[in-house]
């Protein structure tokens, strides 16, 4: 609880400092959008809320849920599935490399025939 209160106090101080600088900018004529003043006032209020109502704890719980379910469970799981797919495909492809020269030559000849057929079709000859 003590750390949360200290974070809350620092939050308020940070928000107040930011707001003070923004108001100074407004007074000195540099011009600051009104929405920024309101949002930094909100920043100060957020600090108060964090300190007194324990919202930090509920936010922490929510962020934990988002990290576990959305980030790791959904997005990262999808990405690692893609990685595993690529690794398994390349592994299967590697098995065709028997190292026997005769097999390589047969594959090259078959590939050449396929290419020739493709060009003949694309060129309108077939």
């Amino acid at each position: 609880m003590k750390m949360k209160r200290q974070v809350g106090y620092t939050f308020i101080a940070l928000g107040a400092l930011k707001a003070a600088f923004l108001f100074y900018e407004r007074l000195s004529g540099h011009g600051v959008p009104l929405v920024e003043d309101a949002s930094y006032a909100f920043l100060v209020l957020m600090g108060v809320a964090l300190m007194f109502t324990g919202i930090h704890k509920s936010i922490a719980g929510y962020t934990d849920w988002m990290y576990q379910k959305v980030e790791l469970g959904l997005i990262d799981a999808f990405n690692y599935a893609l990685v595993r797919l690529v690794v398994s495909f390349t592994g299967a492809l590697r098995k065709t490399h028997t190292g026997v020269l005769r097999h390589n030559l047969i594959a090259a000849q078959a590939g050449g025939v396929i290419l020739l057929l493709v060009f003949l079709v694309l060129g309108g000859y077939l």
Partner: protein
Amino acid sequence: MVDLTLVSIMAPALTSALLFLFKDRLGRYASLLATLTSGASLLSIAATYPGVAEGGHVYSSYPWVPSLGLSFSLYLDSVSFLLSLVIALVSFAACLYSVKYMEGKPGQATYYSNLLLFMCGMIGVVYAANLIQFYVFWELMLIPSFFLVAFWGESENRRVIGFKYFLFTHAGAVCILLAIAAVYTYTGTFNLITLTQTAAMGSLPSSIVPLVFTLFLFGFMVKIAVFPVHTWLPDAHGEAPSPISAMLSGAMLKCGVYAIIRILLGSFSQVMAGASEILAVLAVLSMIYGGIMALTQTDIKRLLAYSSISQMGYIFFGLSTAVLYGYGLTGGVLHAMNHALCKGLLFLVAGVIIHQTHTRDINELGGLARKMPLVSGAAIVAALSLAGTPPLAGFWSEGLLIKGAFYSGQQLVSLVASLATVITAGYYLRFIWKVFLGPGKEDVDYALGGMSGVSAPLLFLLTLIIVLSLGHGVIIGLIGGLH
């Protein structure tokens, strides 16, 4: 007359080759040679300032593939100067830090060879004046950084994480290559200066302009880790050695920022204007999502990595509105520079903390401010700058970003973005309080001792952060010349 832009690229490239070829003979001189080379590259870049001051630019060209009409061309204006400068600054600091960090570890010459090649790739991207050269250096960034993550990474999963990083970034690069091919097919040129400063892009049929734009955008979004193509970043930045994490987060991400400015803002400004709202919403999603993820992290490096996702969201937010109102570009570049220096310093500090305390869990840390005052002081200044605390540079850059969006007509999005700064302040304050304040562990040797050599790069970056904060007006003036 020596071409300093060429020197800044070729010096790390040649030294990288030397280090690799003579890796068995160099021994401890590898670190010295690498540090001197990165310093020389940095000084070369800094010395080009007179050429770009007051809106000037520097252009040099060398024959490359005459049969294709390709030349090796280097273009330097204020944006490429500023971004190449921070890339070189962070790379130099990382190299200097590595002298102590890598002491006694195997494969040092190869490590430094990869580091310098990585640096060469990043600077080459920022100086490239044609799309082929841009792509070559874009891929040149990826390959040594893959080796640095996959072979010098810190856990048993480093190969898988390195491969995931390679796969993601290369997928983005393939999209960029397809877009480059389309651009050349219809415009007949790879020259970036021609494409950005003339109406050459008008040769693209209107039906394929959105497709080409989307291919470029996807490739750059992957590089800067915008939500939802961001998951490679926490893994790669968390896994890499700390100085490499500093370069990945502090320097490499800025190459994606540069690419958006040079190619998308330069050649597709009308499409950017039309897509500004959607891109701003995507950017704000990235800001908030990265911040929420950073709030929940207990691993110090993953916290900083998710923070990078959020901070890149800020920069992307500024660039999305830059076409409509110039503050977005100014704020974006200033924020990029601030993020490079601050995040670079934070990752180096994380390396010191992990080395001294043997833990990455921030719940097991605390009280470091009393035991390691220099390290803690530097980290707190950097964290507060990124949290937007006045009078540090982050305050000014965030203000410009939000102002730019507000004045470009996106008041609601700018309000949400300014609320996102609350989340940023929240996780950085949590980081500061948990790691540096409160009671500490008694059985830990907090004296830097074996890591005493790292004070220099930390002080170096801290000084730069303060100089940037005090001199942000000069930077704003330099970028403002582009509007």
